[in-house]
């Protein structure tokens, strides 16, 4: 196999072990593989929250994720990059997002993974709505997230 970029926006869950193996098997020259998984949490949600609904802008989402990965590739020497983001109904503790990056050395892989997540949170057209027994409530964007993507040189 050789280095790849994988972008997927999907309703179904992803298998962490399988995604890890795909990245690991993609080459023998990279000494670092950094993964991140985002989960649905019950913190800062009301008690009656049963999960989330994730909406997106289908024509734009994969385009933006590709641009973010290309920007990361221009900044660091990366091997394979995989970004998976789920949409639709999710329950507490479900997996939302997977970002996996390989590189020859760990620093590039750590930095690129964080960079991709920081930009995904402020640029990629996804919106979360809490689903509760009293009704649904849209989640507001955090100023701290907007600041994080601005902090990258």
């Amino acid at each position: 196999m050789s280095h790849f970029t994988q972008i997927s926006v999907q309703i179904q869950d992803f298998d962490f072990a399988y995604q890890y193996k795909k990245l690991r098997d993609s080459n023998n020259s990279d000494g670092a593989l950094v993964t991140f998984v985002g989960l649905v949490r019950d913190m800062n949600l009301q008690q009656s929250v049963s999960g989330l609904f994730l909406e997106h802008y289908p024509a734009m989402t994969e385009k933006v994720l590709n641009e973010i990965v290309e920007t990361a590739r221009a900044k660091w020497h990366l091997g394979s990059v995989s970004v998976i983001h789920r949409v639709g109904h999710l329950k507490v503790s479900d997996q939302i997002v997977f970002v996996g990056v390989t590189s020859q050395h760990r620093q590039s892989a750590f930095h690129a993974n964080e960079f991709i997540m920081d930009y995904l949170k402020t640029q990629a057209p996804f919106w979360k709505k809490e689903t509760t027994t009293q009704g649904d409530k849209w989640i507001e964007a955090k100023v701290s997230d907007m600041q994080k993507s601005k902090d990258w040189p």
Partner: protein
Amino acid sequence: MLKILFFGQLKDVIKTEYLEIDIIQNGKQLNTVAKLRSLLQEKGNAWNEYLAYGKALVAVNQELTSDDTVINDADEVAFFPPVTGG
């Protein structure tokens, strides 16, 4: 015709996810995002509040952009709140 899309909370409060409008309005061309935004804000209180500059981001042909962007007939313009994925 301009194709206009709305997402997230904005879509819910204005009860609209898609509309098409003529790029010529009252004999003048809606040639920037700013002019289109102003016109849409006149459609009601919720439109005025939730489409306000700074409250709704804008993408033209699936690219995040700013209000001084020039728009052309058949462009796809999307308005939405700051994103909350990840």
